[in-house]
């Protein structure tokens, strides 16, 4: 390795002779006085002009480029050829990188054979940070000073790098957080630039933080961006600070679960785990993600935000759920855990449940959790996750929902098996659906009779009405495609169909002279004729629509 040091002159005029350690000054007393070699120490006209002009031309809120322009281009240009630069500003780039007079120390990679590390004869003596550094993909950048060890074996000079001509071995200044067991220090030989926290870079460094954001963009050709993390790569891929995420607001850091990391930006966050990769969450979806409990509750994102095929929804897939944002403004929602699984089984927002219209809620009876969708609902109750949707859902709600006649669903809506209808079982009854009859519900004795008589596959077909009270405070009844069922708790329920219904209704039905049926009509071929008994009489069916009544 070629050492960057040059043997220092030991001439008396260059050597400080006063040892000030007794008053707390630990600068190396043997370090040469740089006044004869420091390119800035004599305060020549050109150097003063560099300082004044570059200070005035730059602002406190400059972009990286303008900052570089200020310190490097202007400074260098003026230092090297002030009159030319003033008279011919277009030639400023011709003076680029001549920065020996900007007052800062060169980077180690410039003078240490490309190595971004303290060269021999120096030690890690202190550090500071500059925030929001492009070199660190928006995170903090750490500048670590390498001060010469005592006795100093180098002297002040320009580093001479083609694009980092800053000084070396000139500034006898110490930040002081590292190797505090070493009191004596020589000038700063060079600076290490890293995105690694200094106490990990060198364990002798303490965590005491010093900040100087004016050095955030100091660079050299031998320094490159440290943007190797998946999060920073994702950030870059999304446009960095110019993208929709904007500037860094909280640098990359671990999440307490030990699995992942995240970084925050003006417009959103990026999350990463080794198993999921790095993905962003932003805007209203991020707000909802936080509300839903973040990574603990719904897991890490497994994809970037996407747009639904119909253009209405923005959504983010998570390990245990999905975030939805409605661009029409209805809201932002999370479908999580078993609700997400069920919803996905039913083709998600393109299935018959439709899109979410609310987040998961707890039921009033404290038995279940449920989530509403545009055309249905999912319940998680007693260990089962069941859906209810469409006309069945509407009917169920009309009868008081889970707190009403039918109670909680015992299963999903299922096919009857006849190629026509569907049925869903509830704790308190069943609801059938067919295109001809829509959704109708049965319960109690009427349901029992309907099932006993073959249900939709029997003579009655599908119900045309739901079971409902007769109005006398005693019985219930329902109509079907081919008949009726009437019932009471005391008598049970029976089917009345065909011509018998017409006659029965002409006699006032259950509240008329005959009262409630007490049997079904005898089946065809019954010896002695086909009869159906009622509370107050008997009807006989003679075929061809003929019915007679026997008291």
């Amino acid at each position, binding site marked *: 390795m070629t050492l960057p040091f040059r043997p220092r002159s030991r001439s008396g005029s260059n050597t400080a002779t006063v040892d*000030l350690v007794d*008053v*707390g*000054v*630990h*600068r190396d007393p043997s370090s040469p*006085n740089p006044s004869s070699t*420091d390119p*800035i120490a004599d*305060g020549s006209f050109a*150097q003063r002009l560099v*300082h004044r002009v570059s*200070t005035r031309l730059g602002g*406190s809120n400059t972009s990286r480029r303008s900052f570089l322009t200020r310190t490097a281009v202007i400074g260098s240009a003026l230092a090297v050829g002030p009159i030319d630069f003033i008279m011919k500003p277009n030639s400023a780039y011709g003076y680029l990188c001549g920065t020996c007079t900007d*007052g*800062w120390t060169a980077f180690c990679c410039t003078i240490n054979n490309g190595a971004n590390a303290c060269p021999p004869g120096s030690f890690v003596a202190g550090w*500071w*940070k500059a*925030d*929001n550094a492009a070199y660190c993909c928006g*995170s*903090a950048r750490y500048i670590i000073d390498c001060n010469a060890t005592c006795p100093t074996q180098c002297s002040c000079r320009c580093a001479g790098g083609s694009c980092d001509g800053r000084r070396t071995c*000139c*500034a*006898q*200044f110490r930040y*002081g*957080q590292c190797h*505090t*067991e*070493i*009191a004596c220090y020589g000038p700063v030989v060079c600076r290490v630039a890293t995105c690694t*926290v200094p106490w990990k870079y060198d364990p002798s460094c*303490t*965590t*005491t*933080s010093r*900040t*100087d*954001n*004016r050095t955030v963009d100091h660079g050299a050709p031998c320094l490159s961006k440290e943007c190797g993390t998946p999060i920073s790569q994702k950030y870059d891929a999304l446009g960095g600070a110019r993208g929709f995420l904007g500037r860094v*607001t*909280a*640098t990359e*850091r671990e999440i*307490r*679960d030990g699995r992942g990391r*995240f970084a*925050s930006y*003006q417009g959103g*966050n990026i999350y990463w785990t080794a198993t999921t990769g790095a993905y962003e969450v932003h805007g209203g979806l*991020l707000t909802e*993600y*936080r*509300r839903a*409990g*973040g*990574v*603990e*509750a719904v897991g890490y994102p497994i994809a970037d935000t996407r747009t639904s095929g119909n253009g209405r929804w923005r959504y983010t897939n998570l390990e245990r759920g999905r975030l939805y944002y409605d661009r029409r403004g209805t809201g932002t929602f999370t479908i999580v855990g078993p609700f997400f699984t069920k919803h996905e089984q039913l083709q998600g927002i393109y299935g018959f449940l439709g899109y979410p219209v609310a987040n998961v809620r707890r039921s009033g009876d404290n038995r279940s959790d449920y989530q509403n969708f545009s055309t249905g609902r999912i319940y998680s109750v007693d260990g089962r996750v069941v859906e209810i949707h469409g006309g069945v859902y509407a009917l169920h709600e009309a009868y008081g929902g889970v707190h009403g006649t039918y109670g909680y669903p015992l299963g999903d809506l299922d096919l009857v098996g006849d190629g026509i209808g569907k049925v869903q079982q509830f704790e308190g009854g069943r609801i059938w659906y067919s295109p001809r009859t829509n959704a109708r519900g049965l319960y109690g004795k009427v349901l029992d009779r309907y099932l006993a008589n073959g249900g939709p596959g029997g003579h009655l077909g599908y119900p045309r009405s739901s079971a409902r009270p007769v109005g006398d405070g005693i019985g219930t009844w329902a109509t079907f495609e081919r008949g009726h069922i009437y019932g009471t708790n005391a008598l049970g329920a029976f089917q009345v169909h065909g011509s018998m219904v017409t006659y029965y209704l002409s006699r006032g039905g259950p509240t008329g002279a005959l009262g409630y049926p007490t049997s079904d009509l005898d089946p065809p071929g019954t010896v002695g004729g086909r009869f159906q008994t009622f509370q107050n009489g008997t009807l006989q069916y003679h075929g061809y629509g003929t019915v007679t009544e026997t008291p």
Partner: protein
Amino acid sequence: MAAATAQIRDDETVMKLQSHGIETDLPAGWEGRISVRSSPTLLESRIGADQAGPVGNPGETAWPVAHLGNFPLPERRGDFGSGAVDVMTDQDVLVVLAEYGPECVGTALFAHRGIPTNLTPNMFGANALQRALPDQAGCQVFFTVANRAFCCYTVLGRQSNAARLLPQAQATLSATRIQPR
């Protein structure tokens, strides 16, 4: 950034500045700031705590830094005075008191005891600046007081004016008291 409290004393010539266990009486024409930057922390995994906050990385610890000067201090300053030193004139002097963590107490670098109040011209050098600027000179004294570790960094706007500027810095440092934590 936590800020200091200041009050004008009865004689209206001295401003008392007090914060974070650092107290000083600033003579007329001086101004000062005592502040602590926010420390980044490991954020909650339960998102919601990850709003825009201090930059840097978890683990960094911030300690008080006092900037005292006989000139208007710019709002944006590096901890060792960058930004402020850029606007100093020949008549200006800047004193920085920067605290370090307790792990530094008792180490060789911080072995000197007490606030330095005996600054002399031979302690200053143009090469002892954080960033070399024409005519300026600086001096660093690492010390421990009240079981707290500090660096006193003093910058003279013009080294040749040390005879006039140093007494001002001396007076300010002599009027500075640091309490134990």
